[in-house]
């Protein structure tokens, strides 16, 4: 599937179900709402967000303002697996930037990018809070600690 195809194949009914479950929705619920939508679709399809704004009568400017402010939200499709590389201090002093270089090379994308086959997205995170494992990377919910650059390929190969 390509990025464009992914964007077309969005099912709005899923979003409406979320809205129904969370009703009544006020401005204070914008972040939890977007978090649930992102959980549902893997990202925030802009058309869905617009439709939800109409449905809930939340101003679109306000909702997009929030969606673009926080690093957790993505308005573009994400890969099937999310690879996260920690750029915390402990990781940095233990060679974290070289780990990021290696991951970028292994996936062929830069920080924030998605592979052409849409299998992997790559993000950096401020700190994963597992400094004792530095340098750390995470794939989906799994932590990988003390990752020497030569282990990266093996880790990524476990996912497809």
């Amino acid at each position, binding site marked *: 599937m390509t990025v464009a195809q992914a964007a077309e194949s969005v099912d709005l009914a899923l979003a409406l179900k979320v809205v129904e479950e969370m009703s009544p929705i006020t401005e204070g619920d*914008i972040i939890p709402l977007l*978090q649930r939508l992102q959980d549902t679709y893997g990202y925030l399809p802009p058309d869905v967000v617009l439709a939800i704004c109409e449905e809930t009568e939340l101003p679109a400017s306000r909702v997009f303002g929030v969606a673009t402010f926080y690093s957790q939200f993505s308005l573009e499709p994400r890969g099937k697996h999310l690879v996260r590389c920690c750029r915390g201090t402990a990781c940095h002093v233990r060679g974290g930037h070289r780990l990021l270089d290696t991951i970028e090379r292994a996936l062929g994308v830069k920080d924030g990018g998605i592979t052409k086959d849409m299998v992997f997205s790559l993000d950096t995170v401020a700190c994963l809070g597992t400094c004792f494992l530095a340098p750390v990377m995470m794939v989906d919910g799994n*932590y990988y*600690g003390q990752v020497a650059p030569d282990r990266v390929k093996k880790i990524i190969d476990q996912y497809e």
Partner: protein
Amino acid sequence: MSQVTFRDVESLERFRQEAQEEAESHRARVLICMTGCRSMGAIELGQAFREKVAAAGLSDEVAVVDVGCHGQCVLAPAVVIEPQDYLYGGVTPEDVDEIIETTLRQGEPVERLCQKVGDETAATLDQTPFYAGQQRAVLANCGRIDPTKIEDAIARGGYSTIAKALGSKQPGEVVDEVKQAGLRGRGGAGFSTGLKWELARKAPGDEKYLICNADEGDPGAFMDRALLEGVPHQVIEGMLLAAYAIGASQGFVYVRAEYPIAVEHVAEALKQARECGLLGKNILGSGFDFDIELRMGAGAFVCGEESALIASLEGHRGMPQPRPPFPVEKGYRGKPTSINNVETLANVPLIVENGIDSYREFGTEGSAGTKIFALAGRVNNTGLVEVPMGTTLRTIINEIGGGVPKNRSFKAAQMGGPSGGCLPMKYLDLPIDFDSVQEAGAIMGSGGLIVMDDSNCMVNIARYFLEFTQDESCGKCTPCRVGTRHMLDILDRICSGEGKLEDLDELERVADHIKSTSLCGLGQTAPNPVLTTLRYFRDEYEEHIQRKHCRAAVCEGLLEAPCSHACPSNVNVPQYLGLIAEGHLDAAMDVIRRRNPFVSVCGRVCDHPCQSHCRRADLDEPLAIRALKRYAADNAKGLSHTLTPPTSGDAEVAIVGAGPSGLSCAYFLALMGRHSVVFEEHPVAGGMLALGIPEYRLPKKALQEDIDFILRHGVELRTETRVESVTALQQEGYRAVYLASGAQTGRAMRIEGENLEGVADSLEFLRARGLGQEPKCGKQVVVIGGGNAAIDSARSASRLGAEKVQILYRRTRTEMPAYDEEIEEALLEGIELHELVAPNRIIGKDGVTSGIEMTRMKLGEPDDSGRRRPVPIEGSEYVIECDMVLPAIGQQASIEPADGLETTSWRTVAFDAVTLETSGEGIFSGGDVINGGGTVIEAIADGQRAAIAIDQYLGGTGTLPPDVSMSLFRASDEELEAATTSLEEPTLPVDERLSDFREVVSGFQHAGACAEANRCLRCDLEKIRS
């Protein structure tokens, strides 16, 4: 848990009794960290324990419990076994059978899974230095209970303090207690928690809110994560007390989405507390209502700032508001709101439970209680450490943390994350509390403590933090948004070698503006990492700017590979390692010799900064670069050629001293086509290489090969010619002079008896041997000092017939400047080392040495370098019998020929840091005469720098010939991973050494050398590969 609802305090206490009985019904408990250790296989381990304990029929007696963080995360997966409190690290499912048999059945520790303290096994928590040095109060239950079970928390006293408060205390009393206990906010600023509550409590209105700030965004801090994951009910209890105190009926836990386990555990704990009636309406029948909603952050560091956090909760972009009004007056939904950090809230039950005096027992006057530090970075025992406020960094890092790994040296402690700063060595003994850290230029912050060693570049660290804050700046106010960008641009320039010295002033100027005019804490503190590194490590900034040099070999804009960058002479290390791996030894020699003519010498006696910066050390062991260099020198064939045609004619440059620096300068001048003459006072060339380093370390033949190679380039050598004056040389017509006369005089000890027969300066002693004389050697020899000259003298004395040789040093072995491997060999050869002793006087009989009186020392307060100063122990004097004393306590520069040149207060020649030019025009200086005693490779590098500067001074371009041989060889990833062990060079058996001065270390053989060279990661090719 069966569904229970606590309608009153009694029902809670009844349940507690039952829960305690249940908890005590097992004779042993296996506590497996299922939080941080999950990433290292804790789940599989837990499964294995459950299955095997059941299979062994022990299920009724032994409980297997999933718990929170034990603290010593480096041991992951870590297991504690009660009741003995055995601590096992790195446990795998394969270890479980043995643990069941040895520990659970017989009660004995499985020693191989325990830590070692020296040779002793530290089986229990109390025996391990990591725990013995701590005061675990807030963390007392973390790692002891199953965080997903409220009954576990209740069995260990959970919710007893809120029960007590609801039953017998007015809200105002709780506020007063917390205030008087002196609790200060653990999230960073250290504001009085009691005062904050009092303000919130007294603020008008009935609708008030409590927010638990669990948006632990500081990179390098993870105590809040551990508390939420390991003891969520303790945090909820703290929130209940806080809410009761300020009169809030609604609370929030605002937690980072990046902490999935914390989210899961808090959500579960809230659900259980609600089901039990510990949250909700009419809690414990008291009439007090309070409930908590869990909110996840969406990834914005600025939301740790309280007004930005409130904006985020209200569904806005997380941008801060100007304060005042403070949230305690006008917060969430415009109502009074108290925002407290996780660790702060987890402290509150301790105060209510044990009282003010008990709480104040720990900590300092201004900062009561304990503090949890997240210890990480370049330290052995990474993990969570809870110590009383006022504990020193030395205790935390060296004793609890086990010091800096892999023989590196401590450089700085980074405290307070991106808002904090880097504290250098001299603050190691600073008692840490909110105020002392701030005075030193950092902040306590949330307690992140990242240790840095000499492999970390402080400019790079400052740049790293600024990149972070720049990225996280919300953009609302200009000083933070634009100012941090400007500072980052400057730092980028410095890190890529394009900085100017004025940049440093500009950084300070912009930093001051940002600090004083930013809207919120993020901007106000963002410049701190830059300011502290400028304050304490300014020389590193200057090096980046003036010499394009990064001493830690980190800044990638300045270097190709860390090894060659770390080499003072810039030898292209990866290239020659590649050529050795391919078997092209002549080409490898060619590469080395373009930057260093002393290949045989440096292959034997270099202190190898290249090797100390090898990135392979991050994987296993660094490459044996020095040994490979020697292998090339010993085995290359076509060594007789020269790199350039020999120079001839009238010499343009005069060089004083034929040591490594003088000869290198002459050699590099020759490579650039300039003819020079080298004057040497002694009959042999080589300086300290010939007259200082004994032949068992550096055979004459090896040295001579290097000198012959240099001379073949046309360099003229005039031995036994003493230069009295450098200016006189200029008058003779030399257009430039390089003064490299070394530092060949030993420092006097200035004690009684120094003129007795049998007392000889160690440098003279070594020199006599170097000149081919047989120096007189005693039978009972005492060497005073801890440097290489001391070790060389001692080992030489052993070879010259001494029966007993003792080295006396005033500090301890760790502080000895001598190479560690040399000390090791000396001890192997039977030389005794006495630490912490200093000489008082030398005792003589009839003018001849008969003994030396020594005083024992102890380590006292540290000096500016952070090394603890030795102080004499009164009345501890004692006498060692000896007939020879060799002082080796330092050398003095030989500045006699430097007439008319400026000197320093250290009695060395003053020079320009970049060109090495002295105060006399056309007169350059380098080597030991300017630094009073350095390493061989530094002396060679000075010769190289001076040659370049002299060539430029004389109108040339100062360009050394480029490499002509190239190797793109790099082993495959698989081969690189498989080749894990580093070789050591073979040494002569000890019993064959002492009869003569034969070389002790022999070189690699062909196969070993190739295998070793194959381990090189070829960092220099990384840019090409990507």
